[in-house]
């Protein structure tokens, strides 16, 4: 341990800690004063090239970089002096002289390191009046990322990421001096399962995600932390959304789970939450073969008699895509010995790519197993289910279907098996073409997606992670527990969720895609 003084405050840190680590703290809350920085990233090696994190150390005439200076016993560190402020100001100016300053058309605007640091440490009048260096724009780096070299500040974070984290080594800095540019090595493209992390760590608008760019201005987005439901790793993520839906997913630091990163597949989970892919209303197949739309609560209530009539002929099929709390309510309210665990590609379940991606594409397989064990349920053989459906022993089948059906390649085959049930209840957050085509007595009831409910997922390692509801997309959707309760015949009232986006008095002022297209009108009213 070493004791040092940072901005007059005594701090004790572990041996080998750098000044910037001591100042940022493990939680990145910068308790001891904020240090401007671009190239330093807690999850990457130290590059020491942006030269912005200057601090003054007592006894040293020159300002030093905080990222590569190790704290020693008795060190007195200061980053509030005029000398440091001037160094940061000039450091920023050097970053900006050749920067195109195209914030109005830049996707990073609003969450840009250059904008943030300028407001915090800059606010000077620029003196650069020479021609700026021209570099390549709209460089297609690969399937996911686009590069604008003029915006790039050459902090090398993305290069270090592909060297140290993804270990794919696609990126490099080419050329020399102020004509240096990021690029991919000859014959390569930035194409790996973690490529979009480079966009997250890019402090400026140089690297942008093809999926997200130009979709939304970031100041029109709210965010909320949750747990990724893309696989059994359970990465901590932040989802970004507004009234128009979800737009992107970014990782949140958790040293026990995903560090600072997440995979590119996980970035797509928001697509299964948005209305386009959702089951919006309950549907019942009428005798005429048409789908009749119903309120989800009413449908579930109506089903209670069917469930009761089934008696021993009731069977449940569950998938590892729901929360512990929902499983608990399901098994408490719908009591049957006939429970079947629908497992997708079981042969891949132990696959692991060494970083984050796991073969078990269910976020809560462990949780499901634990709840079943608690209720004394041993899941039945799939063959028994098929035989039961064939013989008519199983009359009513309730399926808690996967939220992300894409990771269930066997869905078509399984659904054709389920079709044999006398009554089939399909609980799902997303719509399913396969189910829509079935014939027989079928109900489809919309479920809440993972961002619309509170709950717990247990990841591959047995770590239970609680998460909170982020927003509401389909306001009438039920969670699995509510559906089970209603189907069991309980007399409860399920209120539709209200949207977190408060309706403004004047509909024209609402931030919608429609009225942003007509932004002329909105700006004239001066309300945005």
């Amino acid at each position, binding site marked *: 341990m070493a004791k040092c003084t940072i901005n007059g405050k005594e701090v004790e840190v572990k041996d080998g800690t750098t000044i910037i680590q001591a100042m940022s703290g493990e939680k990145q809350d910068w308790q001891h004063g904020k240090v401007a920085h671009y190239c330093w990233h807690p999850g990457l090696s130290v590059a020491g090239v942006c030269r*912005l994190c200057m601090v003054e150390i007592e006894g040293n005439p020159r300002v030093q970089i905080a990222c590569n200076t190790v704290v020693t016993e008795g060190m007195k560190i200061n980053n509030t002096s005029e000398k440091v402020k001037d160094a940061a100001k000039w450091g920023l100016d050097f970053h900006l*002289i050749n920067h195109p300053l195209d914030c109005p058309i830049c996707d990073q605007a609003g969450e840009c390191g250059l904008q943030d640091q300028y407001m915090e440490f800059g606010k000077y009048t620029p003196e650069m009046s020479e021609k700026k260096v021209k570099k390549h724009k709209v460089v297609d780096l690969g399937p996911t990322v686009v590069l604008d070299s003029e915006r790039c500040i*050459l902090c090398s974070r993305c290069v270090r990421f592909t060297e140290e984290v993804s270990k794919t080594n696609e990126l490099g800095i080419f050329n020399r*001096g102020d004509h240096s540019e990021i690029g991919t090595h000859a014959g390569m493209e930035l194409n790996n399962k973690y490529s979009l992390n480079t966009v997250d760590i890019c402090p400026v608008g140089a690297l942008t995600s093809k999926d997200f760019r130009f979709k939304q201005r970031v100041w029109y987005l709210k965010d909320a932390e949750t747990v990724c439901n893309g696989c059994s790793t359970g990465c901590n993520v932040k989802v970004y959304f507004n009234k128009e839906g979800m737009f992107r997913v970014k990782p949140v630091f958790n040293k026990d789970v995903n560090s600072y990163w997440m995979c590119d597949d996980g970035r797509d989970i928001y697509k299964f939450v948005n209305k386009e892919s959702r089951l919006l209303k309950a549907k019942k197949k009428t005798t005429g073969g048409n789908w009749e739309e119903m309120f989800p609560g009413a449908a579930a209530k109506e089903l209670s008699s069917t469930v009761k009539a089934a008696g021993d002929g009731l069977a449940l099929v569950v998938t590892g895509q729901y929360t512990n709390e929902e499983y608990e309510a399901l098994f408490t309210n719908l009591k049957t010995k006939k429970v079947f665990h629908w497992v997708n590609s079981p042969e891949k379940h132990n696959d692991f790519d060494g970083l984050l991606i796991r073969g078990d594409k269910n976020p809560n397989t462990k949780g499901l197993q634990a709840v079943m064990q608690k209720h004394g349920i041993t899941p039945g053989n799939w063959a028994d289910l098929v035989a039961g459906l064939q013989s008519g022993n199983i009359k009513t089948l309730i399926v808690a279907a996967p939220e992300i059906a894409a990771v269930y390649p066997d869905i078509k085959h399984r659904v054709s098996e389920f079709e044999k049930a006398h009554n089939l209840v399909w609980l799902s957050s997303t719509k399913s073409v396969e189910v829509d085509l079935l014939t027989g007595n079928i109900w489809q009831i919309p479920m809440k997606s993972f961002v619309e409910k509170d709950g717990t997922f247990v990841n591959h390692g047995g770590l239970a992670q609680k998460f909170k509801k982020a927003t509401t997309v389909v306001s009438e959707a039920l969670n699995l527990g509510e559906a089970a309760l209603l189907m069991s015949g309980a007399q409860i009232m399920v209120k539709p969720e209200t949207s977190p986006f408060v309706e403004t008095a004047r509909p024209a002022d609402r931030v919608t895609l429609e009225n942003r297209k007509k932004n002329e009108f909105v700006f004239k009213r001066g309300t945005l």
Partner: protein
Amino acid sequence: METKLLSEFYHIDEYRGLAGYKAKGGYDVLAKALKMAPQAIIDEVKASGLRGRGGAGFSTGTKWSFLPKNNEPRYLLCNADEGEPGTFKDRMMMERAPHQLIEGMIISAFAIGSKKSYIYVRGEYFYAIGVLRKALEEAYAAGLLGKNILGSGFDHDMDVYSGAGAYICGEETGMISSLEGLKGQPKLKPPFPAVQGYLRKPTIVNNVETLAAVIPIIRDGAAAYKKFGTEKSTGTKFFSLSGNVNKPGNYEVPLGYSLKDMIFKLGGGLKPGRKLKAVIPGGSSAPVLTAEEAERATLDYECMAQMGTMLGSGAIIVIDDANCMVDCLGNLTHFYHHESCGQCTPCREGTGWLDKIVHSILSGKGRLADIDLLVKVADNMKGRTICALSDAAALPVLSFVQKFRPEFEYFVREGRSQVTGKTKEAVHGEMHH
């Protein structure tokens, strides 16, 4: 008069070959050194006061003693990436006396316990590379390299490595990166090369002239070596004299030699009718001296430091009164703009900015505020980067503007040079695009 401690036999062509070199007592000192204790050699070098001849002037013996005292493999690298504008002494040494360098390196390697060394030669010196390769072959054939050198039990291997012509690879960690097969960019310090250098192993990097100077020190002893030079700048040094002098070339003189004598006696003075205007005393990175300062300067580390400049690599660039100082500075800023590796922001952006400002003045479009801006930009590039290239780019700007400000102001005010009466189109600034 020159004092030819190292260059005594450089005029003999046969001196390049092993036989010719041996005929003049070559490799005798190696035989002597191999019988000494390695620590005794280090102590002798330390006592001699030898300072690095590459530019920084750091005590060689002290540098060697930074190596960790363990059995880890360690490397000796000879820095022959002579890139400092105005410097051409290493080239002559390698071309005229390759065995002198090899002998000095084997002695040094023996002292620090290194079994492998490389000579990193700047890519443009292909002739020197050829000479060195041939000399290495001869040395191997004669048992001066390889296993059990001269029966001493000491093994050592040596190789020549050709750089690709980047100025930045003359910076020792840039050179190490390049030797490792990486992009030639300086490494963050700490760790310093003596602790973690080439292949993350302890490494000593010395200049060609420094390694050669070990020979007379071991041959005659530290006391004899110290007889040359001044108290803090011992021994002799090569100076590469260039610019507006009648007899440019390399001259070996004891440190403390008068700069005026160097120019007017050894260098044969200026062209008829010309007056001395300025002197860059230690390679292009060294702050410029005015004629008045140059006339009282002596060529040693102390005097140069006292005058606010550096002895550097010993490249003396003489500028007479037919030269426009703004134009001269434009030449320098162009060089640093072109050679900045681009790693650290202040240097990457600052070198380009300086170059553009100077060239805007040179094209007759400068503003008076540009002169102060040059100073501000240069000031904020100093001491803010991983290596010294940023300082090297800033120092000439600061000294030129400070010492020749009226010339800059005239250029801005009149839109043409005070000396030549002409402007210069900004071709350099747009070079890369």
